[in-house]
């Protein structure tokens, strides 16, 4: 059966390349069928290691199929479908292609059973998601995209270095539970934690995600962080460090979320807060806690996607997304408003909504482990989540002061995508058992007890009372056109200086990489140099074609790029270093 099935990641990535050649309805139907085909494969594959290939004496495993990888495989495929549906009417192939490749690479990461294919898909994720950020084609998005890719390439290097040492130590590229033991495990941990946006490696997320287009941010919100959460569940369950990182993460971002003016930045900070809950669950590492972390990731992808869809609809229809500029939109966007409230109720973990049945597993796990402090922090954060994501987002967008904007609800496909996500949030909240059946361990957990429902409702409703009283008394921090400094200040304020340092530093890295291998593998290194130029040329020419460059202008661009690459005036040090590291890896192992 499996021999004639293609790995879902490959389906996505190959299918994405054909998109620019299709038009109209055919194109829409084709794009929607991609996740459907991948889902069909997922449903029909047996457990175990499948799609294994021999590569330079190593066993690549493209399909490690067990309950843990499957639950993430399902939700990522579902979210890819919703994201594609939401973006169906976008007339920009760059977004479609990179979004679908991004989703495919995420599935590749989730199903990978070995480090080499994991790393490959990991880097494809980083690159393809960058295109989603710069797809807005504004100066701000280009700059944020540049910072984003730099941060992720550096994270990728940590991961790669860890992998090299790990493989050297164990003699195999296969991986499963690692645990924080030696230097290699810490390097791998840092690489993964950066993608999970774990504090203090988080600043790239609120910096870059809000710069995406109305539709691309929906993709971004789902994949990178939650695939890292999956990897942490797989490789570092029970690492105490994660409890403290997680507790810090549920706590600190909510202050920023309260202050932020840009709705999508509010959502980005609340994303960090939600990941914090998952990390606490992974850090505790009991069966209940891990189930909770996985279930919460599953629910979170849906309701956070829904909230970003609602915010995207507002941005699409009004061109605005800042609290100071919008308000009173319920009058003409009632459906978007309704779906946003469902998403807000879900993230706030209201009974009968999805967050309630997943987050409470993590909270209960802290009770079982007698962690009073962590429990109190999580409860504080739960009230705080309701405050900023549950009330603030819908209130300032759809109610609050009337901005006078009279935008309509968005097109049918966007409404449908939000409708499906909203339905799923309510369905999971009312009937949690189907989700519980998917979780890695058997679930003996009952979310709906009288004490739990009343306790949670008290927590939330009296939090709402505080909000109401503060708003009515005028003590609530007013909406102000502003930005709030975060850790990214450290590499942004000195932006130009840092760029020069990086430029010099990375090109130096280039030279060092070359000189290391001077002599014995000189040919290999120059091959990588020109290969890098050729690959860059191939990718860029396609992008330029999509952007509408033709003939002479295209020719000039091509020459510029090729010369820059060959003469090393571009900071391509990272690419070369990655390539050279790979060769070193091979040398070290043979």
């Amino acid at each position, binding site marked *: 059966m499996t021999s004639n099935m293609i790995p879902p990641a490959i389906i996505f990535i190959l299918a994405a390349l054909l998109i620019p050649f299709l038009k109209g309805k055919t194109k829409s139907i084709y794009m929607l069928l991609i996740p459907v085909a991948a889902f069909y494969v997922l449903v029909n594959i047996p457990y175990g290691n499948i799609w294994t290939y021999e590569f330079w004496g190593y066993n690549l495993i493209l399909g490690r199929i067990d309950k843990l990888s499957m639950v993430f495989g399902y939700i990522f495929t579902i979210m890819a479908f919703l994201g594609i549906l939401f973006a169906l009417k976008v007339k920009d192939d760059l977004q479609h292609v990179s979004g679908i490749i991004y989703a495919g690479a995420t599935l590749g990461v989730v199903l990978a059973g070995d480090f080499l294919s994991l790393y490959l898909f990991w880097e494809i994720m980083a690159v393809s998601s960058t295109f989603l950020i710069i797809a807005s084609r504004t100066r701000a998005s280009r700059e944020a995209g540049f910072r984003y890719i730099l941060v992720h390439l550096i994270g990728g290097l940590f991961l790669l270095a860890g992998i090299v040492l790990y493989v050297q130590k164990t003699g195999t590229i296969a991986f499963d539970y690692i645990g924080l033991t030696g230097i290699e495990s810490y390097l791998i941990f840092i690489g993964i934690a950066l993608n999970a946006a774990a504090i203090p490696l988080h600043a790239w997320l609120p910096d870059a995600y809000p710069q995406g287009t109305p539709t691309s941010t929906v993709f971004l919100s789902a994949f990178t962080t939650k695939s890292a959460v999956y990897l942490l569940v797989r490789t570092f369950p029970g690492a105490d460090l994660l409890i403290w990182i997680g507790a810090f993460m549920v706590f600190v971002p909510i202050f920023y979320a309260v202050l932020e003016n840009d709705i999508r930045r509010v959502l980005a900070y609340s994303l960090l807060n939600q990941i914090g809950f998952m990390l606490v669950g992974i850090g505790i590492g009991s069966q209940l806690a891990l189930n909770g972390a996985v279930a919460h990731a599953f629910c979170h992808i849906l309701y956070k996607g829904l909230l970003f869809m609602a915010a995207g609809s507002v941005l699409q229809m009004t061109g605005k997304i800042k609290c100071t500029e919008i308000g009173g939109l319920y009058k003409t966007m009632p459906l978007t408003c309704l779906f946003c409230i469902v998403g807000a109720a879900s993230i706030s973990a209201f009974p009968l909504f999805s967050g309630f049945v997943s987050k409470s597993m993590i909270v209960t796990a802290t009770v079982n482990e007698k962690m009073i402090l962590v429990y109190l922090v999580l409860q504080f954060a739960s009230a*705080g989540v309701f405050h900023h994501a549950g009330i603030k987002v819908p209130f300032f967008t759809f109610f609050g002061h009337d901005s006078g904007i009279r935008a309509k609800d968005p097109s049918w496909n966007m409404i449908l995508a939000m409708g499906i996500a909203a339905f799923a949030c309510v369905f999971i909240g009312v009937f949690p058992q189907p989700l519980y059946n998917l979780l890695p361990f058997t679930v003996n957990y009952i979310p709906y007890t009288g004490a739990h429902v009343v306790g949670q409702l008290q927590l939330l409703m009296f939090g709402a009372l505080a909000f109401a009283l503060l708003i009515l008394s005028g003590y609530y921090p007013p909406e102000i056109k502003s930005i709030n400094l975060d850790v990214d200040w450290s590499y942004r304020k000195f932006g130009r200086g840092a760029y020069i340092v990086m430029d010099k530093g990375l090109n130096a890295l280039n030279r060092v990489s070359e000189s290391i291998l001077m002599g014995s593998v000189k040919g290999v290194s120059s091959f990588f140099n020109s290969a890098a130029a050729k690959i860059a040329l191939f990718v860029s020419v396609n992008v330029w074609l999509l952007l509408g460059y033709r003939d002479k202008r295209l020719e000039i661009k091509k020459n510029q790029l090729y010369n820059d690459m060959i003469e090393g005036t571009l900071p391509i040090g990272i690419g070369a270093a990655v390539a050279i590291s790979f060769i070193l890896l091979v040398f070290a192992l043979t």
Partner: protein
Amino acid sequence: MKKELTLFDNPKNVKILLITFYCSLVVLLISEFFIHPHPAFSFEHVKGFSAVYGFFSCVLLIFLAKILRLIVMKKENYYDK
């Protein structure tokens, strides 16, 4: 174009909403006496603990956020300078 909703333009409706909200708070407090409790920690034996904790969490959140704003808030063009 469809007629727009004006539900909350009427102060009477806002008042009804607020009264409903306050009533639901009272109902929540009373209902705690009629359920089988299973407190997580000893301090949760106190009736209404979650309510008090939720309320003061949010007040503290706003209070600290206001202080944080003094430190981190900058003009929108801060990074472009």
